[in-house]
């Protein structure tokens, strides 16, 4: 009788995990540090920082892949959770500017010019670094718990859930744009100087942030892989395949959906938290409808239902953007849209599917078959 209950660990995935970890954790930082600046091998501080940003996006994509790729719940509001995380960290960083600010006030600059005399109450905890970190992860998770509870408990599914999350993204964008929200309005939070006493302009600080991002991505990946490999992970796939059967097997599907939704929100918060000190600015433009939709494209392009696909999609699409916007800045939205259409219609398994087909020379054994009828794009 067959013994194992879980499928054999996918060795290809293990190897690609080690490979990616080697490249991002060792090779890229070394290329930044070791070769002299004029060597063709040298990776500039700017490029390394850029990769740091891509790896943040990969964490964000992993979360969406759990909810959408595995559980079939399409969320078009991941940007909101990313934004919560980013703003929490941004508030900490803004309070670290201190007397270096343009007006020399303890308050962030935007408060000075919007006539705010005293630090708003919800800013106060963010004087503390630990509060910034915890807030960046917990605020999105708590918000996702409340929102998800209301939505999933009322059995909101499929496109209806997608539309509601899109409305959420739009609402969040409106709220963050208002000066009355006391989060810097359209200008957002920027002009950060230091984190825990280290100068953000210092290349070594940025390198350390990059390495932490790479480690955070590796940890997030392992967390997601553990979830996916557990029996609960199989329930997620089962919900995607046949939700009513899951109910009649004694599970409560909405609780599982809520669970992945909250995990994804936590990952999005983590992603935002790491993004802000590396990019140096967070504005409402980065958290609205469009950025939320882009996450969906990364996952679709990389290959939904495979964790490696989410990472690959986030890094390649964003790298492609950084290359192509140099040459055709106006054309980028069309390229991105075209890419999405091509992938969804012709390569439903995304880049991962294509790579597997190339190397295996046979029909791939994808993480999940994409059903046109349910949970599809």
């Amino acid at each position, binding site marked *: 009788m067959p013994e194992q209950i879980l499928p054999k660990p996918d060795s290809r995935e293990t190897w690609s995990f080690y490979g990616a970890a080697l490249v991002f954790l060792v090779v890229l930082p070394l290329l930044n540090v070791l070769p002299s600046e004029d060597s063709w091998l040298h990776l500039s501080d700017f490029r390394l920082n850029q990769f740091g940003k891509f790896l943040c996006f990969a964490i964000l994509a992993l979360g969406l892949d759990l909810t959408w790729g595995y559980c079939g719940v399409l969320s078009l509001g991941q940007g909101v959770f990313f934004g919560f995380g980013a703003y929490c960290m941004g508030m900490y960083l803004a309070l670290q500017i201190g007397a270096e600010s343009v007006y020399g006030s303890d308050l962030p600059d935007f408060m000075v010019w919007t006539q705010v005399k005293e630090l708003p109450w919800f800013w106060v905890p963010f004087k503390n670094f630990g509060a910034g970190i915890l807030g960046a992860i917990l605020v999105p998770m708590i918000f996702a718990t409340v929102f998800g509870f209301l939505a999933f408990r009322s059995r909101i599914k499929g496109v209806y859930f997608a539309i509601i999350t899109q409305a959420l993204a739009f609402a969040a964008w409106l709220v963050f744009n208002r000066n009355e929200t006391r989060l810097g309005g359209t200008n957002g939070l920027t002009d950060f100087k230091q984190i825990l006493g280290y100068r953000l302009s210092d290349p070594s600080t940025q390198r350390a942030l990059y390495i932490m991002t790479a480690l955070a991505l590796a940890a997030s990946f392992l967390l997601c892989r553990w979830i996916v490999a557990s029996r*609960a992970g199989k329930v997620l796939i089962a919900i995607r395949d046949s939700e009513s*059967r899951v109910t009649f097997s004694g599970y409560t599907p909405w609780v599982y959906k809520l669970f992945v939704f909250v995990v994804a929100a936590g990952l999005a918060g983590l992603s935002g938290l790491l993004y802000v000190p590396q990019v140096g600015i967070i504005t409402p433009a980065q958290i609205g409808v469009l950025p939320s939709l882009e996450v969906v494209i990364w996952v679709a392009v990389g290959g939904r239902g495979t964790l490696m696909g989410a990472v690959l999609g986030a890094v390649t699409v964003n790298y492609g953007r950084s290359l192509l916007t140099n040459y055709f800045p106006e054309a980028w939205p069309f390229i991105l849209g075209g890419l999405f259409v091509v992938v969804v219609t012709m390569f439903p398994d995304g880049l991962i599917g294509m790579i597997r087909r190339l190397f295996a020379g046979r029909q791939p054994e994808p993480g999940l078959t994409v059903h046109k009828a349910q949970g599809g794009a």
Partner: protein
Amino acid sequence: MILNCENVVVDYDGFKALNNCNFRVHYNELRVVIGPNGAGKTTLLDVICGKTKPSSGKVFFGHNIDLTTKNAETITKLGVGRKFQAPSVYSNLSVWQNLDLSLKRASKGVFPTLFGKSTPAERERIGQALETIGLENVAHERAGSLSHGQKQWLEIGMVILQDPSLLLVDEPVAGMSDKETEQTGRLLQTLSEKQAIVVIEHDMEFVRQIARVVTVLAEGTVICEGTVEQVQADDYVREIYLGRAKVAH
């Protein structure tokens, strides 16, 4: 008596899918329910398993548990298993994983399921179920790649792993080959040694193969109950059901 439906009415905006339906099933009984299209057969199963709430009437299960007050998950846990008409298996999981997820466990909450490891006893049970449904050789195949008949058996296997004392099976042999139909009949007969089974079926030959007692449903009420011969001899049944079936053949 394991199941006792009393005066069940299901009213869809004036159309009574079930109209004062009284239906009883004994322990370890294999009962076949037949009836023309729209007679309310599937609705009856929906009411028993909690998918549809009746407008009035009671459904007692086992020792007087009223199922009409419970939701589908609770009813499943109480021991009512439901096999749907169209095969509904998890096509992206292997046969083994399909069975493993369906196995009855103390808790099916998120965290116990997340941290849960399968025990040798559980693996043994899944192995037995695989043998019962005859899918030992495809245990690690993706369920989506199985044939129609195999999917139906897999779903029956999934339901029996929940340890139901009452198994509801909706048209199990629709779309099956003759050989598969016969195997399904034997499977159901084996299973009825341990649990009560209610089967809805159209295929009269299959009904003759498995049925001891047949219930005829028409327009939402039970109109006749008895052996296949008794039912077929009943004039009213011939008029509304068998007569029509003969014309159809």
